[in-house]
């Protein structure tokens, strides 16, 4: 590093460093081109479309109670679902990596099902299960808990679709963690709980954050499975993606894109924050 270049150290103006790995120019060019075609240009079109609206109109659309509520439902419940997945996904992943139980491979395969299942199928299946006369719903009904056609139903659907993201990102990291770290902690007098809290969790933390971010992002964009179980009552259980579809069906394209742009910006900011957080934790564990 600092090989007679313009500046030295991390605050270098030039982002191209001397490196033994060639092909920076080519890969950077490809990345930008590809990202532009697939991601940036469609997004730009989206933003462009909203410019058809006056600023006042835009503000009026996105601050309408129904819009605000839909956004709150989408982001709030996605966040909650990602949290649930972070906790329970970690438990599932732990069992899969650390214990050899009968049917382990089967469970391992089942984890991927939410990836592959058409989301509408998942939504219909979950609705059937959690409806008041469904297998699970009929058990919960006497306790006064209603899942289907409430915001709780949205949470269930988002937990379902988000689970594999957490499991699959954290699993390889834990599997690669040599048992000697835990042995070292134990030999220094740490209890099992202390070992997990002070040694294992910090190691899988960056991967867990990534898994959380992926599950969260998936939850925000999820449509198919949610609309069946949510009941879709405006101001109660209506998610933002559904509201966009509703507006499209009313031919109010500019309204739809305005909501989309707000979703886009919010998602981007949140994911960016999580990403930075993840980089920060990772830098601490792999500092070279």
């Amino acid at each position, binding site marked *: 590093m600092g090989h007679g270049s313009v500046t030295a150290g991390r605050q270098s103006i030039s982002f191209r460093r001397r490196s033994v790995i060639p092909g920076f120019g080519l890969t950077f060019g490809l990345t930008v081109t590809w990202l532009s075609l697939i991601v940036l240009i469609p997004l730009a079109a989206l933003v462009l479309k909203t410019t058809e609206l006056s600023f006042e109109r835009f503000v009026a659309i996105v601050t309408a109670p129904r819009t605000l509520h839909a956004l709150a439902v989408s982001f709030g419940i996605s966040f909650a679902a990602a949290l649930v997945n972070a906790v329970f996904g970690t438990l599932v992943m732990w069992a899969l990596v650390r214990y050899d139980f009968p049917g382990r491979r089967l469970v391992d395969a089942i984890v991927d099902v939410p990836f592959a299942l058409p989301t509408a199928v998942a939504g219909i299946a979950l609705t059937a299960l959690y409806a008041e006369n469904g297998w699970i719903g009929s058990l919960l009904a006497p306790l006064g808990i209603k899942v289907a056609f409430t915001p709780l139903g949205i949470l269930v659907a988002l937990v379902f679709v988000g689970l594999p993201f957490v499991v699959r990102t954290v699993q390889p990291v834990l599997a690669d963690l040599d048992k000697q770290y835990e042995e070292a902690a134990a030999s*220094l007098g740490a209890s099992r709980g202390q070992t997990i809290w002070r040694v294992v969790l910090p190691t899988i933390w960056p991967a867990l954050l990534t898994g959380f971010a992926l599950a969260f992002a998936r939850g925000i964009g999820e449509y198919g499975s949610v609309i069946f179980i949510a009941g879709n009552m405006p101001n109660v259980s209506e998610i933002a993606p559904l509201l966009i579809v509703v507006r499209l069906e009313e031919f109010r394209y500019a309204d739809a894109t305005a909501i989309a742009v707000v979703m886009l910006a919010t998602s981007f900011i949140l994911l960016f924050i999580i990403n930075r957080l993840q980089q920060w934790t990772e830098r601490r564990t792999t500092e070279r």
Partner: protein
Amino acid sequence: MTIDVVGVSKRFKSFNALDNVSLHVRSGELVALLGPSGSGKTTLLRIIAGLDWPDAGEVRFDGEDALARTVRDRNVGFVFQHYALFRHLSVFENVAFGLRVRTGKDKVPDAAIRARVSELLELVQIDWLADRYPGQLSGGQRQRVALARALAISPRVLLLDEPFGALDAKVRKELRRWLRHLHEELPVTSLLVTHDQEEALELADRVVVMGHGRIEQVGTPAEVYENPATAFVHDFIGETLALPAEVRAGRLYAGDRPLALDSQGTADGPARLLARPHDVDFADPGDAPFAGRVLAVRTFGPVRRADIEIAGRDGPVVVEAAVPLQQDLATGGLIGLLPRKYRVFAASA
């Protein structure tokens, strides 16, 4: 603290990793476990530490049953072969780990932790690295952190698994001397695994030679070198020149020729005569007990070595002999070998 290992056996599936191993380590001793790869050194060390349990046998610390206690309560310092430093913690926090996990009435106040860690880092001479992360250290520095971390819990027993295995020759030598010094300063009984015989002979009070899950010999470095108990130890420690022979009716033969050498009470049958290369003289092929053809002569600094092909029972064998500098030796010529000092072992042993 004394360590007693009594009749310990350990099997992995059908494989006998340790076979009825018994060992007594005196308080304050530094003992080296020496043996080829796969001989069970790590397995024995892990059982003493409490990271593994034996299938049979006992482990006692100061006469007390250690197997009843888990690794947490044995208060042993264990240094792993690849250090196993916690990557997300700074050097300081790595060393402090064993103190920070103490809770309740054993809780160590922060100031005491600071003082103790600083003292340890000074002891291992890396106090200036306290704020770095393990990923930013050299191998030798990581080794020192691993040692300081193990010493933080004031262990009475220090177990080191190939502590210098991953370091280059120069650093090893330096750390070796330093470890010996450290051991003498601390009230600790140390057990060190190595497969480097030079390291074991130079560092240890006593050496335990292991082979195939058994202890072959226990003794001071001089004893195991001068007086190997088995052919395995002779082969493994120091250089060995092995000459094929046979014992018939208590006499030693090379092929059909009776030799004017002592059979040392070895039972009748195929035998091997083992000697240190510098204990074998060159002689006239006619008068010497063994003779062979010189295949090659190599000079390497002050040492000269010759590959000599000798007729054995099952075809020719090549031995490597030490050649005195003044000795004339022509490649392709015949030369006699006369062992001055040697041991005879049955060939199967």
